[in-house]
């Protein structure tokens, strides 16, 4: 029987018109924006927020894939507000068959937090997209 935590911390942030969230425990750092880091909004084909001052760089990590390999560290820019929220079992929204079949990668699901529907991102998929993006700029 699979057990799950009753609540988990989620780092909530914006990417232009998108409201996104990732597992906060896989976030290594939230720093001031750096121009050489790609913006996650562009990764998804949308325009970032206009205010550069409200951007942050989020550094995330993925687990090491095999014995002896190092965890992968990657960073992306995101728009304000960047904050940690609690996501409970009841906050996670049930998904229909279309949303369950993996077609939405890097979207792992959705959560309803503070009357807002957040898109929960799968960090390894985001890292994979960032790594495949060659010559990407913010």
């Amino acid at each position, binding site marked *: 029987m699979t057990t799950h935590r009753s609540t988990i911390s989620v780092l909530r942030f914006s*990417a232009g*018109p*998108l*409201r*996104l969230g990732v597992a906060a425990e896989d976030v290594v750092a939230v720093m001031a924006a750096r121009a050489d880091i790609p913006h996650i909004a562009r*990764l*998804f*084909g*949308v325009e970032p927020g206009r205010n550069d001052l409200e951007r942050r760089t989020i550094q995330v990590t993925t687990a090491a894939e095999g014995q002896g390999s190092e965890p992968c560290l990657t960073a992306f820019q995101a728009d304000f507000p960047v904050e940690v929220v609690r996501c409970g079992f009841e906050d996670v*929204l*049930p*998904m*229909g*068959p*279309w*949303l369950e*079949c993996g*077609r*939405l*990668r*890097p*979207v792992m699901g*959705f959560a*309803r937090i503070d009357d807002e*529907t*957040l*898109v929960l*991102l799968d960090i390894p998929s985001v890292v994979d997209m960032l790594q495949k993006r060659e010559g990407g700029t913010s």
Partner: protein
Amino acid sequence: MSRANSRENSRENSRETRTANDELAALVAARQQAKETPVAATATENRTPCLLMRMSDRWFALRAESVREVVAVDSITKVPAQQPYILGVMLVHGGLVPVVDLSLLMSELHIEFEKSSARRLVVVSREGVELGLVAEDARGVIELPPPSEGASEPRRSAFILGEVEWQEHLVCVLDVARLLEAALGTERV
């Protein structure tokens, strides 16, 4: 004998000189026959209950049995890395429904729509897969005859069954199963 011959002659004459009364009787008989004919009954039975929805100046019909409900458009959450016609997802009675803009889906067929603002979400469902179609207007269930093959849309997609006339409008009849397949790729589920 001669009287019988006389009656026969009289009938022959009346067959030759068809009166207005005969014409009227024939008309009444033909009308009666048409009323009772099974062909007419079949035509009535072939009418399908459909829900009508409007996007811009175009009307669409969906089989009523495929429509789960019609709700007001609320907050649509954009989902990254999706086709342009998928506007996002909307929370409907605690469950998420992918929201599709038919005008954007059909623009891939080079069918143009005037700019419009959607106020209704028509939620269609088939085999557990749901999809919300944004609409400016939605009408209750109306019985429509079978659609004819529309010649006006030469590049029409497989999810367009054909067209029917309704109150001086040309209504495009959609096949929900094929629409789900085109919009969400349900054949791969």
